[in-house]
């Protein structure tokens, strides 16, 4: 991002440089400062036309960088035509009259004709304007543009270096017509912009291009030096040729050898930089891949140093512990542990470092973690020791197992309940059968004895036994059905459901003695499973009736229902026997009968009540009264969506 930005600024700088140099030179030519020209003649090497062309090129570069296309293209076209004309004057030895068209120079420096620019300058204008036009038209960089830019830089750079090492041919391609220093600086700036800005995207590495540039400039200078040397030999009749007579002087050989060595060096640099870059890319990619694996892991991964300081955590850790990664990194890992791990962790580490005896490392075990909220939860922890360059770090993989633990506990609870159920059921099923077998034997004896009265009583007992058995089996069927039944929910009118339940209990012998009152408002409804709801209401009422107090002058049962926050509270209140405080913890548990002398129940009634309420998302509660009991069922209420075709449908 930053690199890209600075290269864009290089573009801007090149444009501005051309404008400054071009406008400055044009000003000089127009002001005609004779004194200055006398003192610093080299400044006036850049002709008026060249200065104007530089201004136009710089302006075109800046405009195109701002997204304009037509105007810069036109400017560059003018520069191109001018370059072609200026070059053809040299090549074809003609005069098209453009040299003094705009300005007649007040003096002549470094030129064959007044105002005429050097052929290398003209060629550079052609190369630069062509490259920039191509860039504007194609809207991207390509090889041709890069080559054109490279050529311009090499020509200009050779000219500049020529000034420095006094190799005239480098800037004077034709005698007395030289590329000036200001012109050369403009071409280098423009060429840099063409070659280096935005070219990375097309696959040219800047370092590669720079190497090529350096090498080419050097080789061009070398060739020119060789050419110059040969020219001096011929011109002055001096022979540098060595005695061996192979026609090549030691100096020339040295120049050529150093050129070859330099070329080899540049090539080597180029290839090793490419290799280094590829390795860096590979490394970056593999790091990115590893980071992606760690960050997307479902389990939390924590790296700590040998003092327990957290070095790195992955995304899963922030999810599991609730801390941001910045809140964890740099802290001691014991922040994620409750006591006793929190208290003892430093000791674990020092023990391990001293004795090498691992409690967790390389083993993995179930421990407890502490979330930011303070919640303590079970987690599986596996720690591995990693030795890196003489330092030791530890990687911990943590997995939140609270859900697994919860379902494990639920499963164990369900299993325990099932075992108890099986045990109690087998006992309670066998009990009336064993009793009936005994009674049958006694009946036989009574029959043999002719004790018909005793026999009738015994048969009655047997009948009661079978009634009990049947009742128990019915209850077991209810439990099974409640557990397995899939039932559609529907709107239930509470008052009507309770009235139905009261009617269905009217056969009980105590029924007539008890005043049962249904206080529920007629409009109160609930959306629930009708069968389970009927089981609940039936159980509550039959319990209240069964355990009424025979000594009570006015036994009564009151049924009420209230809409409370988020639910319905249905209560059945009696003034019956109540539940002794010592036995209250046994309420709602299976096979618990709390009234010994009146225990004709299966011991499953309240258990069924609780299970049914729970399966409807509610709870069963007991409240003691001064006299009697109050059993309460709280059920969640769902919005009433009445069937528009058949309102109040059940």
């Amino acid at each position: 991002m930053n690199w890209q930005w600075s290269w864009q600024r290089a573009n801007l700088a090149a444009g501005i440089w051309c404008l400054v140099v071009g406008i400055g030179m044009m000003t000089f030519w127009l002001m005609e400062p004779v004194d200055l020209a006398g003192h610093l003649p080299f400044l006036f090497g850049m002709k008026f036309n060249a200065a104007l062309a530089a201004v136009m090129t710089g302006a075109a570069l800046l405009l195109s960088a701002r997204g304009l296309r037509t105007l810069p293209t036109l400017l560059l076209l003018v520069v191109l035509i001018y370059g072609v004309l200026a070059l053809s004057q040299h090549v074809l030895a003609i005069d098209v009259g453009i040299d003094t068209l705009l300005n007649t120079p007040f003096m002549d420096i470094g030129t064959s004709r007044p105002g005429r620019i050097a052929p290398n300058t003209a060629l550079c204008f052609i190369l630069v304007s062509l490259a920039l036009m191509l860039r504007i038209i194609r809207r991207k960089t390509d090889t041709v543009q890069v080559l054109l830019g490279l050529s311009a830089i090499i020509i200009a750079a050779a000219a500049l270096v020529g000034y420095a090492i006094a190799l005239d041919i480098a800037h004077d391609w034709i005698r007395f017509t030289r590329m000036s220093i200001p012109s050369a600086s403009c071409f280098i700036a423009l060429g840099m912009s063409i070659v280096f800005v935005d070219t990375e995207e097309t696959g040219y590495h800047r370092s590669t291009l720079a190497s090529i540039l350096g090498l080419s400039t050097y080789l061009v200078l070398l060739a020119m030096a060789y050419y110059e040397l040969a020219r001096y030999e011929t011109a002055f009749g001096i022979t540098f040729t060595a005695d061996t007579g192979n026609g090549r002087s030691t100096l020339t050989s040295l120049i050529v050898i150093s050129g070859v060595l330099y070329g080899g060096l540049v090539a080597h640099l180029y290839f090793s930089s490419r290799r280094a870059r590829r390795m860096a890319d590979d490394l970056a990619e593999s790091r990115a891949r590893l980071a992606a694996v760690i960050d997307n892991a479902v389990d939390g991964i924590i790296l700590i140093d040998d003092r327990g300081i957290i070095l790195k955590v992955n995304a899963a850790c922030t999810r599991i512990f609730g801390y941001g990664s910045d809140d964890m990194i740099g802290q001691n890992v014991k922040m994620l542990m409750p006591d006793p791990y929190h208290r003892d962790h430093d000791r674990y580490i020092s023990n391990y470092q001293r004795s090498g005896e691992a409690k967790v490392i390389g083993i993995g075990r179930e421990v407890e973690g502490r979330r930011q909220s303070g919640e303590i939860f079970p987690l599986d922890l596996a720690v591995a020791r990693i030795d890196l360059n003489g330092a030791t770090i530890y990687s911990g993989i943590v997995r939140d197992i609270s859900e697994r633990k919860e379902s494990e506990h639920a499963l164990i609870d369900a299993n325990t309940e099932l075992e108890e159920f099986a045990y109690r059921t087998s006992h309670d099923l066998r009990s009336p059968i064993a009793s009936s077998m005994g009674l049958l034997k006694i009946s036989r004896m009574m029959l043999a004895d002719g004790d018909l009265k005793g026999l009738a009583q015994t048969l009655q007992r047997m009948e009661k036994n079978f009634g009990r058995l049947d009742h128990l089996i019915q209850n077991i069927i209810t439990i099974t059905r409640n557990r397995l039944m899939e039932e559609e929910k529907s709107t239930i009118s509470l008052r009507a459901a309770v009235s139905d339940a009261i009617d269905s209990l009217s056969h009980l012998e105590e029924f007539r003695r008890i005043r049962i009152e249904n206080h529920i408002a007629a409009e109160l409804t609930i959306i629930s499973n009708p069968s389970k709801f009927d089981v609940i209401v039936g159980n509550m009422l039959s319990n209240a009736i069964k355990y009424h107090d025979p000594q009570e002058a006015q036994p009564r049962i009151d049924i009420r229902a209230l809409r409370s926050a988020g639910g319905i509270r249905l209560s059945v209140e009696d003034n019956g026997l109540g539940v002794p405080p010592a036995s209250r913890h046994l309420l709602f548990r299976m096979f618990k009968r709390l009234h010994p002398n009146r225990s004709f129940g299966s011991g499953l009634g309240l258990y069924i009540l609780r299970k049914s309420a729970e399966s409807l998302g509610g709870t069963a509660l007991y409240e003691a009264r001064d006299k009697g009991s109050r059993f309460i069922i709280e059920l969640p209420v769902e919005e009433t969506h009445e069937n528009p075709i058949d309102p109040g449908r059940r």
Partner: protein
Amino acid sequence: MKIQSILVVDDDENDQFICEYTIRKYDSAIRVLKAFDGAEALNVLRGDTPDAIILDINMPVMNGFEFLDRYAQEFEVHAPVVAMLTSSHLGKDRERAMQYDFVKSYFEKPLEPDHLRVMAELLG
């Protein structure tokens, strides 16, 4: 030795009837005491130590095991023969009951004259 008195601890009225009838048929001289749960049984035992106790396990208020705990702790003199009489034959229950040294037998319902004969033999 002849059994003089037996305490029957059972919450089921029918089982109480069967026990009483069977005992009377076996030996009408035996005195039969009744309790409908462990707590009642402890009350009876505070005033009387019978030769034998026939004990059910599953009872409301105080079950057979709770009764055995209390009987072991609170009484110095125990009935010579305590026999468990239950409707189901579970190894776990049997083991638990037989840990008390005064529990001598473990029978399955219904009570038979043979059970009483075994108890009489155990009495010595």
